[in-house]
């Protein structure tokens, strides 16, 4: 088979959030270009935040994404509180972590069962999977529903929660409401454990990445809703307010999403980074399941991210149960956060990876500047690098299976293109 001039094209990538395209150019057996083209129109959130009240970014930025609004609300609240010199902990902090666990359970389960698993089992989509294995998809939907139940109770509703405010919450759930939630979560833990064992049995294509990893780190627990430093795999950790010194976003011609680099190099955030950098803080059960599933001290195969997501789902269910068990309703459910002139930084671990917010606020309580760096734009350069290597290693494949493999590689990252634009289509050119 001659590879001198071939062209592959997928007009719209399926099972990813948002719209985009992939363009791959192969000349004389060499991968000349691998571009993830994001053409979803820019949404200008950072600009429209300027001049708004400092209390508004949590609700406005939650609208960036229907899958991970809690991540946006949490990073926004933390950054604004930081600018105002207030640190939230205690029962309000615990309630934030509980809400975030709900989003992890819901988002991870959606990706594992409906978007990612069909790739490993040879089904074109979740409907075909459900037709062949109804019980499996039922289990996934029940697990997702448990996550949604947390979002609905603590957040007020499952999409774009309305109960979150700067300083905490508008109202805190009662003890009895959380007891009913716990009763729903206990069977979800069994479903989550079964999910790890199920995905651990999949066949994983060989691919090991050497990108640097970056994740939020907390000295006492697996970082979800926040942390104290940013930990990296090839260098010393740095403080959250130093994010801008290390991570620089640049514009690229082929994408409306900015590409971020860590000290000049592509890097990765998300499940692989979190697991590798923070797995010592997983619960004993989650660590045991990870070991049983064949995850070692680090995980560098992006196809195995489905296993990490499953382990993190177990952890999130356990954490939710623990937080409910120890719950004392905070009174009042929020702290007073008076506006002051300042700049604040906030990070949290969205299901897809690190989400950074920075706000400059005036003494008048108006937002002067806003910077939002979502996980998918941080991961974009690394995804393109994976694709380049994957295509180079599989040039003997015919166009169709090679295209399929590229699409799978992209879904490994559960990319949220809507978030990163600030839309996917695949073009493959072989010359």
């Amino acid at each position, binding site marked *: 088979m001659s590879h001198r001039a071939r062209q592959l094209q997928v007009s719209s990538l399926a099972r990813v959030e948002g719209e985009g395209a992939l363009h791959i150019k192969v000349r004389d057996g060499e991968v000349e270009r691998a571009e993830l083209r994001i053409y979803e129109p820019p949404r200008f959130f950072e600009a429209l935040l300027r001049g708004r009240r400092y209390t508004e970014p949590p609700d406005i930025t939650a609208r960036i994404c*229907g899958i991970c609004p809690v991540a946006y609300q949490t990073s926004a609240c933390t950054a604004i509180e930081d600018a105002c010199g207030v640190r939230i902990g205690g029962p309000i902090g615990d309630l934030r972590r509980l809400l975030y666990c709900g989003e992890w359970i819901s988002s991870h389960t959606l990706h594992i069962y409906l*978007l990612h698993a069909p790739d490993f089992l040879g089904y074109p989509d979740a409907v075909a999977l459900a037709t062949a294995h109804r019980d499996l998809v039922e289990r996934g939907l029940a697990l997702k529903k448990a996550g949604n139940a947390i979002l609905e109770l603590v957040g007020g509703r499952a999409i774009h929660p309305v109960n979150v405010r700067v300083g905490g919450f508008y109202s805190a759930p009662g003890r009895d409401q959380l007891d009913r939630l716990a009763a729903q979560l206990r069977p979800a833990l069994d479903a989550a454990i079964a999910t790890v064992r199920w995905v651990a049995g999949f066949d994983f294509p060989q691919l090991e990445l050497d990108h640097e990893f970056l994740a939020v780190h907390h000295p006492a627990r697996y970082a979800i809703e926040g942390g104290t430093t940013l930990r990296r795999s090839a260098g010393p950790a740095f403080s959250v307010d130093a994010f801008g010194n290390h991570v620089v976003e640049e514009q690229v011609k082929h994408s409306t999403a900015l590409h971020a680099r860590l000290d000049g190099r592509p890097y990765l955030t998300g499940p692989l980074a979190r697991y590798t950098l923070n797995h010592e803080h997983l619960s004993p059960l989650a660590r045991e399941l990870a070991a049983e599933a064949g995850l070692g001290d680090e995980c560098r195969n992006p196809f195995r991210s489905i296993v990490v997501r499953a382990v993190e789902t177990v952890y999130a269910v356990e954490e939710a149960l623990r937080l409910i068990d120890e719950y004392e309703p905070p009174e009042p459910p929020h702290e007073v956060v008076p506006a002051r002139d300042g700049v604040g930084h906030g990070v949290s671990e969205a299901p897809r990876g690190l989400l950074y917010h920075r706000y400059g606020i005036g003494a008048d309580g108006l937002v002067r500047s806003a910077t939002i760096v979502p996980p998918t734009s941080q991961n974009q350069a690394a995804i393109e690098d994976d694709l380049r290597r994957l295509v180079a290693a599989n040039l003997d494949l015919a166009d169709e299976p090679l295209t399929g493999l590229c699409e799978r590689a992209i879904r490994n990252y559960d990319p949220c293109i809507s978030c990163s634009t600030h839309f996917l289509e695949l073009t493959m050119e072989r010359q």
Partner: protein
Amino acid sequence: MIGVGNEYRRDDGIGPALIAALEDRWLPGVSLIRSDGEPVRLIEDWAGASLAVVVDAVLCEPSSPGEIHQTEVCLQQPDGTKALGTHSHSAGSHSLGIPDALRLARALDRLPHRLIVYAVEAADTSLGTELSAPVAAALPTLTEAVVQILRK
């Protein structure tokens, strides 16, 4: 009664706008649900219902904004959902739309007993909270049609 759409994307907000209009009407035994059209949630919302009415905005070509299309989806036939087309371009999450939700619901045996879909042709789905004139003008007609069906 499920109103699908995003009230911050002008005509895409026809579903939620209809739910708001129905809140003042006497509709015993009817649940009024605002939805972003996420398939799993749609399935949970309509599973087991004797009748589900779903209202959503559609983009058509050629377009006649404000025109109302009503389809009763034939649920007894495996390919009955083809009336809605096999391809959807929803603005929603992860490239699944109402037709996908129907196929998934069938595989999981979570369809309602009857399903009626109203699709209203949109003129403008840009950022904003107001319906365009032709879609706003269609709202009273749509409301009365839906009330008739729900009261039967």
